[in-house]
């Protein structure tokens, strides 16, 4: 995680103070703003912070697929 991310108040608030071994941790989302209904539907989420569109990695492109 970059320093910028750690300074983010959202991330600071959500990382539990005492992490335990052999457990999985997911930061808890804090609702701030949301997209308008039409834009939210178009993107597949109303939460800008959860919008992570697929970036096709060209170096992993199957051979022979030129599209």
């Amino acid at each position: 995680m970059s320093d910028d991310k750690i300074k983010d108040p959202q991330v600071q608030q959500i990382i539990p103070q005492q992490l335990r071994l052999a457990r999985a941790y997911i930061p808890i989302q804090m609702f701030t703003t949301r997209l308008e209904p039409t834009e939210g539907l178009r993107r597949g989420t109303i939460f800008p912070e959860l919008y992570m569109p697929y970036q096709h990695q060209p170096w992993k492109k199957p051979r022979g697929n030129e599209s």
Partner: protein
Amino acid sequence: MMPEQIQLLTQIMALEFTAVELNLYLDTHPEDQKALMDYNAIAQELALVKDRYSRRFGPISNFGSAPSQYPWAWVHEPWPWEVTF
């Protein structure tokens, strides 16, 4: 489908999707008052648009969710998988 039906259906899709998203968020954040107020406001708006849609184009939901005109309008086509707007 008439343009007006498509327009109302698109509006229902967008509002209900916002409700689904806030609903799932509230399931894991039941004490978030801001999200809850937003959910309640969307639920109210959604109910109004669904009511307008059902009166004009027949029920969007069955089993007593909304009354039907004569004849029983639930059987009207197209069904969702036949809608390609």
